């Protein structure tokens, strides 16, 4: 069984990211399942960057815990990451840059990457390609696949550039043959035959938005969401749409509401600081019952925080951000593949229920690449908003008519007889302001919340369950932690623990019909979250009056399966010892 974690580290601008990307695509094309993890400096040039690629011949659920192969372009990379190298793992380092102290626990290959690139190729910048040649030879990764990729990637820069890169690859490939192979890592061709795609969470999300019928995107550049905007800016005009870079995030969501009012599907994507600015417009979307999709690719907060690092800290803002009673839906994306289908669900819910849908992703998910089966848009049937009938338009159309479902038919400009004012003031059924009518405000609030009945029914379908169905120890996670939790649960089940994980993809309103039996049947429930206070645990505590066990991590990095597994073992010991206070009802 092949399962190998590569990590490349070095100075930003040294080709760390491109080394990781080339390795990723080559391994994917060679037939391996891929799961990458990127962290990079907030600075554009300089600062430490690293790129991790996990390749396996089986389904991958996490970035992995330990590193099998560490490629260090400089001493800083060595010092930062050597502790993560597994016992018996491989260190490839640039012998021109530094000399690590000898160690028995790992296998070292010192390669003069810089001098090979300068002297044999004549281009210092190709040292990262030399390192790929070394890996190709050492670990038996098909060199033809690397060559094919280099031709594709550098073809536009001209034949000389292609040749220099091919030469660099070959220099590394041949050089390592002069050293004795001391490790046992051999990949060869992978087992996967099916044509799969390699994409990031943000790319998958953008594709899903296009599949949903997105026409207009309005946004303001912000890490780590900007690549959604840049991707759509290139693709949307080809299908008759457009991306506008607005002056701020308030304008971005304002323009989304304007376009949606005019009948087009529109969205924006941002991260925490921009999402904070959008709150007033969310309220307007709720009061005027205008469909809108808002993506928040979370990063570390508060304020500017750590822009390139991951966190799940915006849940309170997504659920509660706003004044007044705010009916909205909050979804959380769980994997690269789920980004595609999740955003389609978001558009459907926004259109069907005429309210804003907030979609939570994060830096970890948005920027990691994975092999995914080619998405199939037909798996999600597109739902468009309810339009008034011809009779309604003739007989005094009421935009905010009270209905059993709470959903009122929505006319779009250009429709004869459908004119109305989308109101931010409390209003009556016609849409006329009713700012002093107390009873009407109650009825209208009830109308807007009535839609939740149908949303909750959908919510119960948007839940994944892993491991033991009725476990002694339950885990409820959300968002991008899904794969990591799933892997930890599998580890625990393999060792005989009664553990299961429930992973809701909708966080507000909550899938109570699924949550209740799961929570009430377990002796203890662990809620792992990448935030300090346990935001989802707090939401659930309010519903279930139960003392959940929180597992919180706030260092700007995702969970590893081991961290969650260790918590399971710890809680299992308490449960077996009958220490019920851990899971006591409050």
């Amino acid at each position, binding site marked *: 069984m092949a399962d190998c974690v590569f990590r490349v580290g070095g100075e930003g601008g040294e080709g760390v990211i491109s080394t990781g990307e080339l390795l990723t695509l080559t391994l994917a094309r060679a037939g391996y399942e891929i799961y990458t993890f990127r962290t990079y400096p907030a600075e554009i040039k300089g600062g430490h960057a690293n790129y991790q690629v996990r390749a396996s011949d089986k389904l991958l659920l996490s970035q992995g815990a330990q590193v099998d192969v560490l490629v260090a372009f400089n001493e800083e990379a060595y010092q930062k990451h050597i502790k993560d190298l597994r016992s018996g793992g491989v260190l490839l380092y640039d012998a021109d840059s530094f000399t690590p102290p000898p160690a028995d626990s790992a296998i070292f290959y010192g390669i003069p990457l810089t001098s090979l690139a300068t002297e044999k190729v004549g281009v210092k910048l190709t040292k990262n390609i030399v390192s790929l040649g070394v890996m190709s030879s050492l670990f038996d990764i098909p060199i033809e696949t690397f060559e094919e990729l280099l031709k594709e990637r550098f073809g536009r820069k001209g034949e000389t550039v292609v040749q220099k890169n091919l030469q660099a690859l070959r220099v590394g490939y041949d050089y390592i043959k002069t050293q004795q192979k001391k490790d046992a890592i051999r990949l060869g061709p992978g087992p996967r035959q099916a*044509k799969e*795609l390699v*994409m990031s969470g943000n*790319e998958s999300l953008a*594709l899903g938005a*296009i*599949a949903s019928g997105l*026409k*207009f995107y*309005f946004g303001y550049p912000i890490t780590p969401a900007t690549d959604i905007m840049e991707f759509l800016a290139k*693709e949307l*005009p*080809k*299908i*008759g*749409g*457009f991306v*506008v870079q*607005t*002056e*701020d995030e*308030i*304008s*971005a969501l*304002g*323009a*989304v*509401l*304007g*376009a*949606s*009012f*005019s*009948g*087009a599907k*529109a969205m924006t994507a941002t991260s925490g600081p921009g999402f904070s600015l959008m709150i*007033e*417009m969310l*309220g*307007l979307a709720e009061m*005027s019952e205008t469909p809108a999709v808002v993506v928040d690719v979370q990063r570390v907060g508060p304020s500017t925080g750590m822009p390139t690092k991951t966190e799940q800290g915006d849940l309170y803002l997504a659920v509660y951000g706003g004044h007044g009673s705010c009916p909205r839906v909050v979804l959380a994306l769980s994997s690269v593949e789920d980004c595609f289908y999740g955003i389609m669900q978001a558009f459907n819910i926004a259109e069907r229920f005429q309210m804003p849908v907030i979609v939570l992703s994060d830096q970890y998910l948005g920027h990691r690449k994975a092999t995914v089966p*080619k*998405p199939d*848009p037909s798996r999600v049937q597109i739902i468009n908003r309810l339009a008034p009938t011809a009779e309604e338009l003739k007989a005094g159309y009421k935009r905010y008519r009270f209905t059993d479902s709470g959903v009122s038919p929505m006319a*779009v*400009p*250009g*429709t*004869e*007889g*459908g*004119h*109305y*004012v*989308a*109101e*931010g*003031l409390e209003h009556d059924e016609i849409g*006329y*302001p009713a700012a002093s009518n107390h009873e009407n405000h109650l009825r209208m609030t009830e109308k807007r919340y009535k839609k939740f009945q149908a949303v909750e029914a959908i919510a119960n379908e948007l839940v994944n369950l892993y491991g033991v169905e009725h476990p002694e120890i339950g885990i409820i996670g959300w968002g991008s932690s899904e794969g990591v939790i799933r892997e930890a649960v599998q580890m625990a089940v393999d060792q005989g623990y009664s553990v299961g994980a429930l992973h809701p993809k909708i966080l507000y309103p909550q899938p109570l019909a699924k949550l209740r039996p799961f929570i009430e049947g377990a002796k203890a429930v662990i809620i792992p979250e990448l935030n300090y206070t346990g935001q989802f645990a707090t939401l659930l505590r309010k519903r279930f009056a139960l003392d959940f066990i929180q597992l919180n991590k706030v260092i700007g990095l995702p969970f590893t399966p081991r961290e969650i597994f260790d918590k399971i073992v710890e809680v299992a010991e308490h449960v077996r010892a009958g220490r019920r206070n851990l899971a006591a009802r409050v």
Partner: protein
Amino acid sequence: MSAQAAEISPQEYKTDEHPIWCPGCGDFGVLASLYQSLAALKIHSKDLVVVSGIGCSGRTPGFVKSYGFHVVHGRVLPVSLGVKLANPKLTVIGVGGDGDGFAIGGGHIAHAVRRNFDVAYLVMDNATYGLTKGQYSPTAPKGFMAGSTPYGNIEKPINPLAMLIGYGATFVARGYSGKPRELADLITRAIEHKGFAFMDIISPCITFYNTYKVIPPQLAEVPKDHDATSRTRAFELALREDKVYLGVFYQTQEPTFEEGVAQVIKAAQASAPPRLDEIFAEFA
């Protein structure tokens, strides 16, 4: 904008909702002029969208038989952009007050101007915050006494026309609610203008800052020999303090945002319109 053949009476734009403004409010004059302009241009209610902000003027969409969007404070222009972009056939009119436009929403004007999307933006300027009972606004003079400036306003007012000409707006005009016929003509020209048309409309607040006696003696028509195609001349006229000039200060023709968008789409589609499948291929 869609011109219909049939005559439309200004009265047909009235709705069942009665204006909540104080008797004597300048906004009545603006509304009457707007009805006149819409009738003159024969704009069908189904193809008209009035977007408004917060303040007394913000209630305007409810009084005009048309589609409307009464948005939050200061955000008339971003919402108007979305409305127009998603359906360029619509006639979009933005209305708001001086606080809505120049204070809380002031950051949007420069960018609406840069885009030059086709909207007529009518600012009903009374130099005060009427709906919160008379505080000073960005166009209130120094020394203005009100609840939030009990010792007198120590900030200087902005000059909306000079600001808009400076930003590069393609149509800049000023009107007065007390001269409804002239105002209707100006609004008509603003709506007809292709691109971002800005109008500062003096519309006195009878309750908190009654300028009905002060304003008329200062008024003058834009001089007959004014060259409205010259941005320099327009800027000079906007800076003059001898009179409050009414009329078109500046007008020029530049490509609109919608035209730019259409061109980008056309160019992008020239290389065979892709299906989702072809976009997927980029990730293989």
